[in-house]
């Protein structure tokens, strides 16, 4: 898989910020902001999968939605195939964003219950003029086949399908746009474990067949480990560590990454001794409305020093391609 990859970034995100205003009162005064995404940098190469992991509420989904254009980001730049996507006219944005598509979390709400499968997919083709009208039926069958569904499912309504099948329909709908990048926002977290693997394998296969890049957003490290070439760990609206999946799993440098890996349940003989030696994180994620000063992680950090409470930690490259935002990066 690595051989297929080239080093030219398909997507480059810099300083991405998304602050949601909190508006109160009759005069609609802004009383504060939710710093959902607070300066995020990453890139995705051609044919690569970047896994974005973090706890619920850390801003993973918001990052995905900013990319797709569902949210108008507060600041930052998103360069896709060499062109800036943010602040373009609507028409230009449509053509740019066509090649970035999203796979949604909840297959039970991501399909319009009042449309047949052929209309759900056909609408995409029609609105964007992607195929000649006479070839539409054939293209829909092709797309369904690509995601492993029978073409005679096209006449059915979403409620006649299982969760996994619905997720496949959602994927087919995204593929209809002929995307270069798929943003998969927790694509399997709403599915049964037995079905999760099927959908993950489907995404893997599509990625290879169509040479897609992917941003895989998930809180489940085992999912990300299986799919991602590189992983970015997010905490409270910031990316705290980025690296290849091997670097990150074997050699985590940020205390938060470390804690996340420790928290993976591992069936193993003599587990009790290991369980006792585990260091699990205490406390809760601070509110993104009023994030702590200095390093956002310091209230929960086991290696906290005075400096952490004062200053923002810089991004340090501990080995090629492995970047950590910590004053005291280290193994344990």
């Amino acid at each position, binding site marked *: 898989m690595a051989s297929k990859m080239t080093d030219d970034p398909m997507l480059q995100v810099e300083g991405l910020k998304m602050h949601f205003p909190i508006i109160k009162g009759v005069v609609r005064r802004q009383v504060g902001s939710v710093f959902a995404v607070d300066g995020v940098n990453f890139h995705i190469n051609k044919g690569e999968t970047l896994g974005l992991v973090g706890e619920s509420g850390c801003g993973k989904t918001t990052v995905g*939605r900013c990319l797709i*254009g569902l949210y108008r980001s507060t600041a930052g730049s998103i360069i896709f195939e060499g062109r800036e996507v943010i602040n373009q006219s609507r028409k230009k944005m*449509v053509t740019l*964003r066509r090649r970035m598509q999203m796979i*949604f979390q909840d297959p039970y709400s991501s399909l319009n219950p009042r449309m047949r499968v052929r209309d759900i997919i056909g609408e995409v083709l029609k609105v*964007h003029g992607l195929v000649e009208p006479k070839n539409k039926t054939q293209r829909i069958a092709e797309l369904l086949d690509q995601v492993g569904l029978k073409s005679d499912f096209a006449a059915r309504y979403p*409620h*006649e399908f299982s969760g996994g099948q619905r997720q496949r329909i959602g994927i087919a709908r995204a593929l209809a746009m002929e995307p270069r990048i798929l943003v998969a926002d927790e694509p399997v977290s709403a599915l049964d474990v037995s079905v999760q693997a099927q959908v993950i394998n489907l995404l893997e296969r599509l990625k290879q067949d169509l040479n897609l890049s992917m941003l895989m957003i998930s809180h489940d490290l085992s999912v990300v480990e299986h799919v991602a070439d590189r992983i970015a760990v997010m905490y409270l609206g910031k990316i705290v560590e980025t690296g290849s999946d091997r670097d990150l799993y074997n050699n985590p440098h940020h205390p938060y990454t470390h804690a996340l890996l420790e928290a993976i349940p591992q069936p193993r003989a003599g587990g009790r001794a290991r369980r006792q030696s585990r260091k699990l994180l205490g406390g809760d994620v601070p509110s993104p409305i009023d994030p702590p000063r200095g390093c956002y992680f310091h209230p929960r950090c086991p290696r906290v020093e005075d400096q952490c409470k004062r200053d923002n930690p810089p991004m340090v490259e501990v080995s090629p391609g492995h970047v950590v935002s910590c004053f005291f990066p280290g193994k344990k």
Partner: protein
Amino acid sequence: MIKPALSQSFSISSHPSSTIRTLKRLWHLRLGILGSLLILCLVTTALFTPWLAPNDPYTQDITQRLLPPFWMEGSSSDHFLGTDHLGRDLLSRIMYGTRISLVIGLSAVVLQLILGVGLGVLAGYYRGRVDSAISFIVNAMMSFPFILLALTLVSVLGASLQNIIIALGLTGWPVYTRVTRIETIKLNEQEFILAAHSLAYSSWRIITRHVLPNMLPTLLVLSTVEVARSIIRESLLSFLGLGIQPPTPSWGVMLAEGRDYMLMHWWLAAFPGLAIFMAALGINLLGDALRDYTDPHLRKY
């Protein structure tokens, strides 16, 4: 997360057409049947009155005035439900009144739907200042007594069939706005609407193809109830003398005319009143049945 769609998924195997399925389910609701029958009577009467009515509703015959209905002493076989103070046949007048009531009920609801749903979707879809402005108007309208507003409108516009429809339309829309606004906000959080945005569909397409079809059941139920309400409100306006003008046979007008003779000739007011009651009951029963049918939690079969 159990979504309505999930609990429907047992009907995978066979594919009877949706109309047949709808009818099958309605069959299970006996009150729904009763409602449907009443509505059927109402509509048939309205459509075929000129052929069904035994007499002309306007022909006066002073010698035959204030005749009682058929089972009472002194009744005439020509006048099944008796005659009013000008000797006009009561049954025929009630039958002609059906037309007016239905026309008013349906047209007023269409007008309310256009205004109310339009504004409600705008408010719920765009939020922000648009929403604040529309919600303010709705709240103002709803805190204002209907009768005062309708009376003012009718007295300014003048009493005629169109103007009553306009008055009922202009006063009845805030309910729809409230309901559609909330429904739109709820739908906007659904991922299929987000998907529609990410697929770069136009707002028009998202509203007409994705938002509106998904609130159709709600609107259907609301509209049936509002048809009944509009019929009652028309009677109310006519009763007060600001609605349909005599001699046009409207149920409200007949009720008002009958009031003066209530003590000795109760049937003059009772039968038009009964007609209003039956119409409203029928429409409400059908509305309830439709609500039960569209709500999967109440669907027991």
